């Protein structure tokens, strides 16, 4: 049996007294797109943030169980969180490029990780922008502020910024919820292209999106991972009645 890229075992998470994730077990395979779906407040975004330890920033959070990345527990006390976040990158719900030039946005990651050589940086910037399929749109305005771009372009800049640090896993927290349909389509195409090289986990509110982009779907409800499996199976013959109700739009 091949080892999963990420393996979550008996994961429980609490915000103070609130039990946000209840005994979650999930295997994420490399080079696949895993979609996390479920109604608001079901814990899917929380779960995503467990994977790159973004929840560390919030006080009163307690995590139990284990999250293995390539077989290694990321909640070990000696885990280097900074290095972990370099390996597991994140795209946020609202596009959040830094208020600096396109170039500096992309070069930010490599720079903080110690790359100073201008030629090398140029190379990384171009490669990342090409990989995020935004190079053609911004190559003439690399040195202008990224804030002036459209929402969809900004989100692809954010993805390019992430690719520049060469992560292994991409976490996407509703990356298209602030975008129009056309921009959404571009991001989805991008996700399809990226999965050849990266392992992608995407949180989405949009059922069609989950069906379109993902290989595996996990359905969360009030902190429980109710069901997970091949996207085709989940969407055509879910085993749990509640999954079916949610997918067919009866609640949520």
């Amino acid at each position, binding site marked *: 049996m091949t080892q999963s890229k990420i393996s979550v075992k008996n994961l429980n998470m609490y915000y103070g007294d609130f039990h946000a994730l209840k005994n979650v077990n999930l295997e994420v395979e490399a080079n696949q797109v895993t979609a996390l779906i479920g109604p608001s407040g079901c814990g899917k975004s929380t779960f995503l943030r467990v994977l*790159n330890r*973004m929840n560390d*920033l919030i006080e009163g959070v307690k995590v139990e169980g284990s999250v293995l990345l390539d077989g290694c527990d990321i909640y070990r006390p000696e885990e280097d969180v*900074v*290095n*972990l*976040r*370099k*390996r597991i*990158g*994140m795209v*946020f719900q*609202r596009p*959040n490029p*830094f*208020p*600096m030039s396109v170039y500096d946005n992309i070069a*930010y*990651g490599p*720079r*903080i*990780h110690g790359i100073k050589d201008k030629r090398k940086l140029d190379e990384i910037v171009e490669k990342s922008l090409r990989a995020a399929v935004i190079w053609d749109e911004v190559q003439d305005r690399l040195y*202008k*502020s990224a*804030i*002036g771009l459209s929402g969809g372009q900004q989100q692809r800049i*954010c993805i390019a*910024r*992430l690719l520049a*640090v060469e992560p292994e896993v991409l976490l996407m927290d509703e990356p298209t919820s602030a975008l129009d349909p056309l921009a959404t389509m571009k991001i989805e195409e991008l996700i399809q292209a990226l999965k050849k090289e990266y392992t992608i986990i995407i949180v989405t509110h949009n059922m069609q999106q989950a069906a379109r982009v993902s290989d595996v779907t996990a359905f969360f409800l009030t902190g429980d991972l109710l069901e997970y499996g091949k996207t085709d199976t989940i969407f055509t013959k879910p085993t749990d009645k509640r999954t079916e109700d949610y997918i067919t739009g009866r609640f949520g």
Partner: protein
Amino acid sequence: MKNSFVYKYLSLRNSESLGRFLTTMAALIAIVSTITIVVFISLKGLSTFTTNGVSLKEFLFSTNWLPDRPLAEGGPQVGVLAFIIGSLVVSMLAVLVSAPLSIACAVFIVEIAPYWGQRFLQPAIELLAGIPSVVYGYIGLSVLVPFIRDNIGGLGFSVLAGFLVLSVMILPTIVSMLIDSLKSLPRDYKEASLALGSTRWQAIRLVLIPAARSGLVTGIVLGLARAFGEALAVQMVIGNTRVMPTSILDPVITLTSAITMDMGNTPMGSLWNNALWSMGLLLLIMSFIFILIVRYGVRRGGISR
């Protein structure tokens, strides 16, 4: 029925016009007083050049301050360069000391320890703004001046004492501008940086502080304006000698302290008195420039879209 409606309508109209009248009057008073003050100072200040025939160049670029020199020895001369330099040096050094401290304070309050910072440090810094300047001057005079005299050298009354006192006085101005600016940044910036594998310090230094730079510049300009215009506290600790300082331990004089020192001793309408008004006009122009920088320069210097 119809009458009562008209009555109501009219009374509404009346109360509305009363409110309108009151607010318009209040606005007019503010505008008129600003204009009259500016006109008055300009007329007074310009009379040095129009009535007394002093050349602008001599006024601004000469260090000879001899307003009571008898005609036999060449007549009075009013060059205020030493005062201008004194003001500039003292205020800029104050900002130089205060700005890094302010950045550290603001970052501490907003990013490092929000609970502790917003509960104790921020009120403490805001209290600094409420301390009367005479108290700052008094403390400077009785603590700082002897300390400098005994431990560093010179008379104690010095550029050093002046800008140290000022740097504390302008700290709250810069800090509060920076706090507002840092708080208004989207939380996402920090998270995005951390998610790329930056340390918290890298996120603060490379993303948050640069993103808040318009607040920093505004704070610095406002701080500079305050330092430039401060008279009392500065006057108490800088010694007020009308010569160019050559080291930070030398005594110095500023435009403001020169005005307060002499204004009681000179007859209205004399060259000496007019020269003081010209210095006042100069201060006014400087503060206009500072305000213009804040209003137009900072916005344009911000993020270009």
